């Protein structure tokens, strides 16, 4: 038992440390250029985690989450302009962003979630372009290519970033908590079953459409809310920034870099990539934009081709391999041991099965059906 409780304690301690560090960050680094990195990184932690709640668990990769992000921003901008909302009361409009995101997700999902996975990706791209086009063309609503400005917040300019930092931190924390809750719930299990074999899951009573749609709506609502926060923070939204194809790719890249489907993966990915790209854009040799684009594409290629499961699971595997080297692998008993990685699991299986009473034909025998008689 002590074997189990110790890692738990270590983990709790690390978590407290992390939260403390996150809270203390703007107190230590008061330079707005630095806190700016913090705010945007946390916004992307939220987006990547929200994306992962749907895509990471269900295996339906969305390349259209900018639809929610941009719609959240525009919904706020339009509401604040038309209802003449001023000052900090604008934050009372946040639930509206969530509703807008959820409604879009329902309609979008009812169409896009009917098709096979790879067609889904393509549909998300198509829907994304419809939204960008609408933002350009519905001039009376969206302000056309000039975009919208956010209501003025008369916060002191010296510590302007700090409240945004804590708001973004709260969102990031809440989203991670939701991701953990989903992961542990029956709902999350159903989503992961859909990822592995959707038809089979349906045959075991999983209402696949309902489960997928719920996750999509949850993910979309969160993304829309953080989109509206981003809008207040940046002070404006334009069609090409609110509905940015690079945004979609960045979010997917964050999740893949860290570890697609895991909780910590997208968080880590966002914390690496967002400050990274922000820093690159401040460097004079990258100012044209195209070099950072090439670099982004190259990083993406390297990740997908060489560490497709992300640095968190792959790293975890290495650690497990190092730990179990030289002694028999321990069969993980806890149901939540999925993150233990398949390397340890496969080793344990091969160690266990020859001795077992149920030792039987290897998988290769599938091909010779008649042979077993």
């Amino acid at each position, binding site marked *: 038992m002590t074997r189990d409780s110790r890692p738990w304690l270590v983990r709790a301690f690390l978590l407290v440390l992390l939260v403390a560090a996150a809270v203390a960050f703007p107190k230590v680094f008061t330079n707005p250029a630095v806190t700016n990195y913090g705010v945007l990184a946390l916004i992307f932690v939220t987006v990547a985690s929200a994306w992962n709640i749907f895509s990471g668990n269900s295996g339906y990769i969305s390349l259209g989450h900018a639809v929610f992000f941009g719609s959240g921003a525009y919904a706020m901008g339009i509401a604040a302009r038309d209802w003449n909302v001023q000052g900090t009361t604008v934050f009372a409009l946040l639930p509206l962003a969530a509703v807008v995101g959820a409604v879009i997700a329902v309609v979008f999902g009812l169409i896009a979630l009917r098709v096979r996975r790879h067609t889904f990706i393509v549909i998300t791209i198509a829907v994304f372009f419809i939204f960008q086009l609408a933002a350009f063309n519905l001039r009376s609503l969206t302000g056309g290519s000039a975009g919208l400005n956010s209501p003025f917040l008369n916060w002191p300019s010296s510590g302007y970033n700090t409240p945004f930092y804590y708001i973004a931190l709260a969102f990031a924390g809440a989203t991670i908590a939701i991701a953990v809750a989903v992961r542990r719930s029956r709902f999350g299990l159903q989503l992961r079953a859909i990822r592995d074999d959707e038809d089979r899951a*349906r045959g075991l*009573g999983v209402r696949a459409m309902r489960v997928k749609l719920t996750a999509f709506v949850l993910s979309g609502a969160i993304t829309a809310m953080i989109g509206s926060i981003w809008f207040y923070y940046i002070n404006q939204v334009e069609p090409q920034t609110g509905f940015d194809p690079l945004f979609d790719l960045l979010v997917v890249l964050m999740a893949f870099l860290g570890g697609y489907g895991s909780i910590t993966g997208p968080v880590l990915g966002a914390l690496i990539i967002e400050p990274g790209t922000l820093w690159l854009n401040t460097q004079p040799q990258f100012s044209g934009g195209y070099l950072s684009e090439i670099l982004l594409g190259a990083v993406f290629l390297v990740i997908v081709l060489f560490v497709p499961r992300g640095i968190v699971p792959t790293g975890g595997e290495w650690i497990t391999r190092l730990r179990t080297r030289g002694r028999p692998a321990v069969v993980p008993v806890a149901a939540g041991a999925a993150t233990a990685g398949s390397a340890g*699991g496969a080793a344990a299986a091969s160690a266990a*099965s020859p001795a077992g009473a149920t030792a*039987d034909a290897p998988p290769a025998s*599938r091909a010779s059906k008649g042979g077993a008689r």
Partner: protein
Amino acid sequence: MTAVLRTEGIKKAYGGVQALNGAGISVDEGTIAGLIGPNGSGKTTLFNVITGYDRADEGQVHFAGQVITNAAPDKVFAAGLGRTFQLTRIFPRLTVLENMLVAAQHKRQQRHTVRQRAMDLLEFVGIDRHAGLLAGSLSYGQRKLLELAYVLVADPAVILLDEPAGGVNPTLINLIADRIRELNSQGKTFLIVEHNMEFVMGLCSTITVLESGAAVVSGPPEMIRSDKRVLDAYLGADLEEEEPDE
């Protein structure tokens, strides 16, 4: 005895091929029924139609007093009809125990009870030691056992097995047959598609022979064994030589 599962005049065509042509079968409650026939006679297609994986062009499926024709797979399962697949389909990136819990979702019991029941069933089929492993790391035979076990979690009244003995070794075949008999004695009804004649003849009380998408004859094993039409259509060829793979 009453028929718990019955199909009437099921027709299904793929392009120009008539996979099912008026297939009618009937399974009595509490029995182990067999469904045999040459390759391409429509056995798996009939399973797919019954369980909602394929739509029937014509005909009806009756189950426990309801008409479930073309109901979605999740509805069919919720009604109490579970199935396995010829090539086993498990969830490779979930643990063995998690695989069991996917099907447990219609139960409103405590989490603990569901888990306990899942573990009991894993023990019943003899793979409880692997509960914490990823299902993708199981051997083929273990996957077959897992598939049988997770179908049982939700306690379906009728279980459709598609080639439970296909591609597994004789020891395991006996284990599977034992488990089917034991479940049957507890009141579960089975409908089994199988190429292994010994397995079917030894296990089933009624056997239906399907040929070109229609049921040609139905009766107890002794009768099927001696029926001339069956010998001509299927058994004769099969007993003399290996049938080609599907």
